[in-house]
Each structure stands twice: as structure tokens, then as C-alpha cells.
């Protein structure tokens, strides 16, 4: 079993704001992250897959293909976007880093070949804050 990681990045605006709550409650829970006019981040995304290398190529998976899948299914939809209002797979969800990582996992899984297992989505919101999601 080998693990292979591809690193991508995207820049986006968001806010942490629960529309079911009052403005006061949002500010009490989310602080400055609830700013109605948004703020933003440089996100760093680590996608890790696992499996056995193909005996003919020595590859777990063609990393160029992995990069294209991540770009088409994730980066195109997130980069230079407003996560709260422009991303179909986040509609109706809170735009936390946790939910974003889960959403990215769900975007990628259907596009990976059956013999490749997605192992981990690691998503940095800032250099000092990141989440990991292992699909369970």
C-alpha cells in the first residue's frame, strides 16, 4: 500500500454565518468570521490517495490525471469564488473548513477509478489552521 498526495491551492471569500440565527447570535458565536461583507483565505488542499502501484507503470495513479480531476471537480468551482453563494456543492451548508473538506471528498470520489481509494483530504485555511477528513 502506497499513499500519494497532490497539493493544490485556491483563494476564496466566505463568511461563517448561520442564516437561521440573528445577526447578534452569529457575531456571538463566529466573531469577526461572521462579517456580513465576507473575508477570505488562501486555501491549501492536500489530496491523498492510496493503493498498490501498477506493475507496468510503477504508478499508483497518473498524478497528472489526479491533478486534472482535482482541478475540474474542485479548483474550478472554488478558486476566486465566494464559497457561500457561488459553489453548488456547498449550497445550504455552513462554509466551515470542516464542511469544505467533506464537500471536496464527495466531489472527488465519483471521479476516481474503482481501484484507487481516496485516503485523506487535508485542507489548510491558514498556515496554522487545517482539517483532515478520512471519509468516515
Amino acid at each position, binding site marked *: 500500500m502506497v499513499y500519494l498526495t497532490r497539493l493544490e*491551492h485556491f483563494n*476564496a*471569500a466566505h463568511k461563517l454565518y448561520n442564516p437561521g440565527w440573528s445577526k447578534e447570535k452569529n457575531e456571538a458565536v463566529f466573531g469577526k468570521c461572521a462579517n456580513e461583507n465576507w*473575508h*477570505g483565505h*488562501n486555501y491549501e488542499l492536500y489530496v491523498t490517495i492510496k493503493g498498490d502501484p501498477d506493475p507496468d507503470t510503477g504508478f499508483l495513479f497518473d498524478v497528472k490525471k489526479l491533478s486534472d480531476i482535482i482541478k475540474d471537480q474542485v479548483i474550478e468551482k472554488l478558486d476566486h469564488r465566494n464559497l457561500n453563494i457561488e459553489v453548488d456543492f456547498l449550497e445550504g451548508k455552513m462554509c466551515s473548513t470542516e464542511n469544505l473538506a467533506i464537500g471536496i471528498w464527495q466531489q472527488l470520489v465519483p471521479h476516481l477509478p474503482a481501484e484507487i481509494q481516496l485516503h485523506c483530504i487535508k485542507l489548510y485555511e491558514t498556515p496554522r489552521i487545517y482539517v483532515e477528513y478520512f471519509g468516515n
Partner: protein
Amino acid sequence: MSTREKKVAVFRKEHFNAAHRIFNPAWDDKKNAEVFGKCSNPHYHGHNYELIVKVTGVPDPQTGYVMDMKQLSRITAEEVLEKFDHRNLNLDTVYFKDLNPTAEHIAMVIYDLLRARIDPKLELQVRLYETERNFVEYPAE
């Protein structure tokens, strides 16, 4: 070792997260989109900005300091972080009402804000990272 009149540069690193949109109000949306591409998205995007403030001068013979770093930290927090962190640079600050919030302009605004609070005999330069690979310095040597 004689330290008289020898200049030293001290640096303070800070960061803030903000949303912005590159937009020239003198142009229509089409031209903004042509020139600035996805950076002009009307719904904004955002960055983790890294700011490095450089202060150069001769260390004070009494303290050994070019500048008290605690004071530099406080000034930077008051003038930059409180105004820019978790803000929309276009909408939530007074500085970019008529000024496009490019990294160049943000660095120039930050310089002016800090310059007014730092001893004129000390030199000041700011370096601003918009991403890890895009950064600007002002003033340029």
C-alpha cells in the same frame, strides 16, 4: 565591538485574512473582467495576507533597540490588523473606496498608516504577501 552609527533592520511579521475584488470603477464589468479576469469576480474572493514590516535605524545606545518590537507590534495591530483583518477591503475600509485594492496599493496604504506612527528618523519598508508566491514591497529601493 563599536556599534556607533551602524544601522540595523528589524522586522515584524503579521497576518490578516480579507476579501477583496480588483475593480476599476471607471470601466464597465466587461472591461474589468477582460483585464482582471477572475480577480474581478463581483462576489469577491480572498487571501491570507502576510505582512512584513521592516524598520531600519541605529540601535539606541541605552536600550540596544532600533525600536521596541512590542510597540511596533501594537502599532501594526492598531493601524493594520484592526482595520483589515476579516474585512472586505473594498467595502469595509475607507482606503479603497476610490483605490483599487491591489497588493501594490494595499502595501502603499499600510506604509502611510505606519509611517505616521513611527519615529521619522527610522526608515520603513513594508513587504506584503498576497499569496506565498505573489508579494510586493513599498517603497521600492
